[in-house]
């Protein structure tokens, strides 16, 4: 089944890393929320996540779902963004044995998956080691 509509709805976050910042307590939420989980307020301003951070933790996927089997083994991690929230994403361009917590990474635009040979290509963000 096509997931075009769902993919399309998530474009602001997947393409441009748009988050919401609570006008009450300043907490940044990604993806955006309707109610701040920290203070309960409902007013937010749009912010864009910083493009750099450090690997907080990660796990290596060796037996991957079929959509990702070409890329196995690959790492999924939590990245503490510099001055921003933590996000979960794939960590690309790095062999699992070279990956370390605390490693400096930047966010790059990548293919996340494609819906078979005839379906749409899903683009989004991944973390990669800084040059």
């Amino acid at each position, binding site marked *: 089944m096509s997931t075009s509509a769902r993919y399309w709805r998530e*474009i602001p976050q997947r*393409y*441009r890393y748009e988050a919401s910042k609570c006008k009450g307590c300043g907490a940044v939420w990604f993806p955006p929320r309707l109610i701040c989980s920290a203070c309960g307020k409902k007013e937010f301003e749009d912010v864009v996540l910083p493009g750099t951070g450090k690997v907080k933790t990660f796990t290596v996927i060796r037996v991957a779902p079929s959509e990702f089997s*070409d*890329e196995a083994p690959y790492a999924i991690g939590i990245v503490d963004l510099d001055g921003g929230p933590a996000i979960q994403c794939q960590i*690309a*361009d790095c062999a699992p044995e070279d990956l370390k917590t605390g490693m400096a990474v930047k966010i*790059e*635009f*990548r*293919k*996340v998956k494609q819906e078979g040979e005839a379906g*749409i*290509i899903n*683009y989004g963000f*991944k973390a990669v*080691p800084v*040059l």
Partner: protein
Amino acid sequence: MAGIVGYGAYAPRYRIKVEEIAKVWGADAPSYKRGLKLVEKSVPAPDQDVITMSVEASRNALRRARIDPADIGAVYVGSESHPYAVKPSGTVVGEAIGATPNIHCADLEFACKAGSEGMFIALSLIDAGKMEYALAIGADTSQGAPGDALEYSAAAGAAAFIFGAKNTVADVEHTFSFMTDTPDFWRREYMYYPRHAGRFTGVPAYFKHVTGCATAILDMAGMKPEDFDYAVFHQPNGKFPLTVGKKLGFTDKQMEPGLLCPRLGNTYSGSSPMGLTAVLDIAKPGQSVFMCSYGSGAGSDGFIFRITDHITGVQDLALKTTDYLDKNQVYLEYGAYAKYRKKIRLGE
């Protein structure tokens, strides 16, 4: 005067050496390295394509242009390896950089000169006063058939240029285009790999069109090769641009800063545009830059740029092109390369 207000490049970090490809096909690596003047080429990761590289190059261009992306009025992506047969690359790029929805967008294709086509159109829109800024991208993840001479050079990379009329870093003083119908390289619909006409790709194709375009634009400008600080030509291999440049009267010193092919390979639509980004990274105010693209089929676009005082303030605002060439390369064996480039047919 209209010109470039921001520029950026992107290249994947994976590489494969000529020796690694030659080993698999029983070819003589030294003769390929000598013949192509090429030691290695870039390889896109499995999660990279023309769209992802275009976005990254455009973001580098935006960092240098320091403009609101919403002020960009057009996005043109030139490539012969657009990920979709039907669905624009430019819509994804425009959306990702925050330029939508008030933009004109088109995907262009003209073998290796689709990038300079976009540059020509973007510049013309600025010259015509139709918009404040226009973005032109040249990007490719081209494929050579396994064992074919093209496999040693077909590489991946992208260059992006934001054109505008204010705060330019390089003014465009002259342009010229030269084109004939010349069947030197092609790929038919549904075909996975391109075909080429062997030695016919040389004298009647690359050399005729580059020489024709370069000679005409120099005449138009009333300039000689020695009037330029840098010269960038399309780089299908490391040899052709140096040969044509010398025939025209340019020197190695003028051409080497923009000659990326020996370490990067042929990035097709990104080739001469990426060479231009490498030159802009080191250019000084007042210097002049000559650029001539080439696309099979066949044609060339020529540009003459004059570097402005603004260049020094933007060069360090994004990664430089040589950073992508020199830092953290990951070298692949042929097996991984074949998997990454989907040269291996998998079962259902």
